[in-house]
C-alpha cells in the first residue's frame, strides 16, 4: 500500500522535473507546425510534409551519430567534410566499373562507403583518445583534411556518377518509397531505432553516458573509457556514411560544397533535442526532432515571405543559440 503510493508520487515527481527538457523540442516542433499552417495552407499537405521529412534525412541520420559523440562528452566538427569525402570515394569506386551488374556494384559500393566512414570516425577517435587532444581541435583538423582530399580527388571540380544505368538503379534509394513512405524516412527511422536501442538498452550505451557524465568515475568503475570514446566516433562515421548512401542518388555527384555546414546543423539538431553539450545526457528522439525542426524552419522560410531564404544559415545559427538559452533556463527552473 505505502509502496504503491510511493511509486506513484515518484512517477509524478519525475514527470515534474525531468520531462520538461525532453518534451521541449516536441512542443517547439508542434508550435512550428501550427505556424507553418498559418503561413501557408499547403504546408500541412501530406506531400509537403513527406518532402520536409525526406530532406531532413541527411542531418537527422548524421545527428543520431553526433548524439553518441556528444553525450560521451566529445564533439565532431568533421562530419560535413567527411560526408563529401565518403561520397567522393564511393562515386569514384562506382565509376571504375570493376564489378559486373548493377546490384552487386551498388552493394559493394555501399559497403565501401560504410567502411570508409567507419575508418574516418576511427581516425577521429584514436587521435582524440590516444593523442589526448581536445576533440574540437582534432576534428577541426580532420575537417580540413577530408575537405581538401575531396577537392583533390575531384581535381577541383565535382565527382559525378558516370554510368547512367547505374544511376537509374540507385535513384530509388532517395526518390523511391515503400508503402507510400519515402525510403529516406524509413532510413531515419531505422537509424534512430538502432541508435535508441544502443544508447538506452545496452551496456555500451550506459558506458557512453557514464563517460560523458564523469570520465574519472567511469575509469574508476573499470570502464574502458578510451574504447568507449573511440567507438562513439566510429558510430558517427558509420552514420555519416549511411547519410551519404541516401545523399548520392539525389544528385549523383559529390561537389566541393557537399556537406557544407552539415556539422553546424547536426550539432544544432542534437542540442535542440535536449542532449547536454557537456555530456552525460543523450536523447536520440529529441535529436531526430531537432533535425526536423531545422528543416521545417527552412521550409516555412521558403513558403513564406518573412525572411529571405538566403538567410537560412543565419536562422539556424540563431536557433542553436536560442536552444541553449532555453535549455539553460529549464535547468535553472528545476
Amino acid at each position, binding site marked *: 500500500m505505502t509502496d504503491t503510493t510511493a511509486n506513484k508520487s515518484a512517477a509524478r515527481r*519525475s514527470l515534474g522535473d525531468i520531462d520538461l527538457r525532453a518534451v521541449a523540442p516536441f512542443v517547439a516542433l508542434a508550435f512550428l507546425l501550427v505556424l507553418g499552417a498559418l503561413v501557408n495552407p499547403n504546408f500541412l499537405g501530406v506531400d509537403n510534409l513527406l518532402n520536409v521529412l525526406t530532406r531532413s534525412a541527411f542531418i537527422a541520420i548524421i545527428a543520431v551519430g553526433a548524439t553518441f559523440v556528444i553525450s560521451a562528452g566529445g564533439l565532431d566538427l568533421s562530419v560535413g567534410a567527411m560526408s563529401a569525402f565518403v561520397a567522393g570515394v564511393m562515386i569514384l569506386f562506382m565509376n571504375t566499373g570493376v564489378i559486373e551488374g548493377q546490384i552487386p556494384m551498388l552493394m559493394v559500393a555501399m559497403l565501401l562507403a560504410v567502411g570508409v566512414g567507419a575508418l574516418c570516425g576511427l581516425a577521429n577517435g584514436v587521435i582524440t583518445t590516444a593523442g589526448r587532444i581536445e576533440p574540437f581541435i582534432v576534428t577541426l583538423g580532420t575537417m580540413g583534411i577530408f575537405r581538401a582530399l575531396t577537392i583533390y580527388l575531384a581535381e577541383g571540380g565535382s565527382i559525378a556518377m558516370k554510368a547512367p544505368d547505374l544511376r537509374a538503379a540507385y535513384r530509388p534509394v532517395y526518390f523511391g518509397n515503400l508503402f507510400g513512405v519515402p525510403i529516406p524516412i524509413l532510413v531515419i527511422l531505422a537509424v534512430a531505432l538502432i541508435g535508441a536501442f544502443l544508447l538506452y538498452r*545496452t551496456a555500451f550505451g550506459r558506458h557512453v553516458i557514464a563517460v560523458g557524465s564523469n570520465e*574519472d*568515475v567511469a*575509469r574508476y568503475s*573499470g570502464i*574502458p573509457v578510451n574504447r568507449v570514446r573511440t567507438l562513439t566516433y566510429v558510430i558517427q562515421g558509420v552514420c555519416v556514411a549511411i547519410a551519404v548512401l541516401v545523399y548520392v542518388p539525389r544528385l549523383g555527384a559529390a561537389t566541393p560544397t557537399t556537406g557544407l555546414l552539415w556539422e553546424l546543423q547536426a550539432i544544432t539538431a542534437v542540442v535542440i533535442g535536449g542532449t547536454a553539450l557537456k555530456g552525460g545526457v543523450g536523447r536520440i528522439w529529441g535529436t531526430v526532432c531537432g533535425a526536423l525542426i531545422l528543416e521545417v524552419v527552412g521550409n516555412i522560410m521558403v513558403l513564406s515571405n518573412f525572411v529571405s531564404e538566403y538567410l537560412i544559415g543565419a536562422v539556424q545559427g540563431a536557433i542553436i543559440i536560442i536552444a541553449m538559452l532555453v535549455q539553460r533556463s529549464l535547468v535553472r527552473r528545476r
Partner: protein
Amino acid sequence: MVTTGKPPLLEAAGISKSFGPVEVLGDINLALEPGEVHAIIGENGAGKSTLMKILAGHLAPTKGELKIDGTPVVMAGPVDAEHRGIVLVHQEILLAPDLTVAQNIYLGREIRKGLSVDDKAMNKGAAEAVRALGIDIDPNIVVGRLSIAQRQLVQIARALLVPHRVVIFDEPTASLTLTETDALLRVILDIKKKGAAVLYISHRLPEVKEIADRVTVLRDGKLITTRPAEGLEPVDMARLMVGRDVAKLYPDRVATQAVDYALEVEGMDVPGYAHKASFRLKQGEILGFAGLVGAGRTELLEGVVGLRSAHGKVKLNGKPVHFVTVRDSMRAGIVYLSEDRKGKGLLLAQNLGINLTLAALGQFLRGMLIDRRKEAKALDGAIAEFDIRTRSKDLLAGQLSGGNQQKLLLAKMMLLDPKIVIIDEPTRGIDIGTKEQIYKFIAELAESGKSVIVISSEMQEVIGICDRILVMRNGHIVGEVTGEHMTEDEIVVLATGVTSREAAMTAAHA
C-alpha cells in the same frame, strides 16, 4: 555569551523548508548573538546544510522568516546576504586553480588602478589576509599548486575579506591536519572577539567542545535542543545527534589468525608519489594506512590496482600478477573505493540504479540488453542491505547525503564480489551514526574472509578498526604498528618524523 537585551544579530523564526512534498527542515528557531560561536551538529541528512543555505541566502525558506537585528528580511541571494554581512565558507573548494592566491582572494572584487588591476596592492592585501590566518602562503603562487588544506585556508581568507557580522563555516576542518585545524580554531576565536557571530558546522565533536559557546542539535530536520556548550561532553553531543547511545563506535574484533597472504606488494614505485613500497596483506585482515595528507597512501594503492602507472611486484594469493588497468585488478577480485566520492566514485547527475550497477554491468545483461528489472531488484536489495536512506529511488546520486553516497559506493563495489577491498577515507565527511554502520560493515567483510585495506587520516579510526597499521611519510612506508603500539603518539612520530618529545608536544597541543 552575553545577553544584552538587544535583538540577536541573525535570527531564524519558525523556518521550514520543503522540497516537493518532503519537508527537510521543520520549524527551526535559532538566534545568533554577537560574539558567540554557535555550533550546529547533526547527522548527515539532519538538515544542517539546508539550514545553512537558508541563512546564507542560497535557498529561500518555505515558511518562517529571517530577522537581522530584529528586522525581518528577505534575502535575494548569497550576494545580498554578503552585503548584509553574512558570509558562508563552503566545504567544497571553490577557487580557480589557474589563478594565483591573490587573484583568487580578490576575484570579482579586484583592486583597480585606473583601467588596470593593482596587483601590488592585491598581493599585499592577500599576504596580510593569509597571515592573519596564521599560515605562510606566497600570494603569487598558483592555487593549483597548493595542497587541499592550503586551498581551504585561502578560501577562508577570501570569505573573511568582506565586512562580516556573521560567518558560517561548513565543516572547515574536514581536510585539515591537526596544526592547521588549530590555526583555524584560533582564527575563529579571533572573529568572535571582534564581535561577529560564528556559526560552526562540524562532525568533529571535540573541536565543537573546544570552541563553541552554544550547541544546537538537529535531527531529521527538527531542532532537538540548543544548549550552552559548557558541561556538554562530545559523547553527550553524539547521543543527542543520534538519539541513542553511541558509546561503542568501533566493533569488537579478533585479529585474523590466518597465515596466508592475500596480497603481497614488493618494491612498488609510483613515480612522484611512492618509492620502493612493500607490504603484505593477510587473508581476513584489516590493514590500515596512516600518515599525513599527501604522504602518498592513495597514490600507492592506486598504483597497485592499475589506476596509475607504477612499477613493482604484486602477488595475489602467492601468484605474481600484473595489473595494467583497473579492469584487470577488478577481475582479479580487488576493488578500490576512492576518497573522492563525488569526483571519482559516483555519477552525481545520474540516478541510483545507474550508479549501483556501473562497475558490474556485465551481471545485468541478458544478451545485449540491460535487464532493468534485475537492476531495479538489485537497487532494492542494496537499499535494504546497506541501509541507504533515500526519499525516492528515482533520486540522483548527487541528491543523497554524504553518508548515503558512501553506502551507495560500497554497494556498487560489493556487486563485484571482491576478495580484497581497499577503502580510502571511508568516513570522511560522514556523521557518527553512519560511521558506526560503515565500521561494522568493514568488520563483517573481514570476518567473512575478505581482506580489507583502510586508508585514513583519522588516527582514531585506523586505531579503532584495523588489526595492523602501516604509516607512510613522503612516499615511503616508514613503519608498522600493531597491538599495544597502536596509539596516536606512535603514529604521529612515524607520520611526521619528529622526535617523540616534539610529538608529545604536538599531541598535547591538539
